[in-house]
């Protein structure tokens, strides 16, 4: 059983559309991270959310941490082809060990 469940597994949308991906767990976390990984590259950290109910914005990306700190969502507004990639959520256990979800593969068609 995965610690973090991500949905959907795959998402293909047209340029200009909005999308939301989800990261869920039955466990409570002190913080949660979102990464984007492009083909042939390692994951790159997008954001860390720490407080329950917290909302962070990074240009057209909006990240939300659930009130109970068990789940999170990533919303992209007016998606562009450059947003294409694998979006991973992760939590840190033992202060250094990252546990990742399986990821959502997002494809934005021009």
């Amino acid at each position: 059983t995965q610690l973090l469940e991500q949905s959907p597994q795959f998402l293909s949308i047209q340029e200009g559309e909005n999308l939301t991906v989800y990261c869920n767990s039955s466990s409570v976390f002190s913080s949660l991270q979102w990464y984007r990984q492009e083909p042939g590259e390692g994951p790159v950290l997008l954001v860390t959310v720490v407080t329950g109910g917290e909302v962070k914005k990074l240009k057209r990306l909006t990240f939300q941490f659930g009130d109970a700190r068990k789940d999170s969502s990533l919303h992209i507004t007016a998606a562009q082809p450059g947003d294409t990639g694998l979006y991973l959520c992760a939590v840190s256990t033992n202060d250094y060990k990252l546990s990742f979800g399986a990821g959502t593969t997002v494809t934005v068609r021009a």
Partner: protein
Amino acid sequence: GAGVSQTPSNKVTEKGKYVELRCDPISGHTALYWYRQSLGQGPEFLIYFQGTGAADDSGLPNDRFFAVRPEGSVSTLKIQRTERGDSAVYLCASSLSAGGPGEQFFGPGTRLTVL
């Protein structure tokens, strides 16, 4: 600027062979991590070094896997008697220090294929 580098970028080997994968962390980063990413999955933790010592090797799948970091900088992941199930992308990451929400910076990975 120099990020985390990994060599080779691709490695194809035959079942039963020995392989070494190299990681050059960001200069000055004392913490180094190895992860393995199978197709359709997120990275899975293998081992963590603080300086020269392996502080946590609980993610290594079995005793065919071993990693070293003799001078506290470059690290080598060694796999003996490779099996087809070892095929994956092996990612290395480094951070300034371990502990707390410090960011781990990932290299591009080595894609290992065992035929």
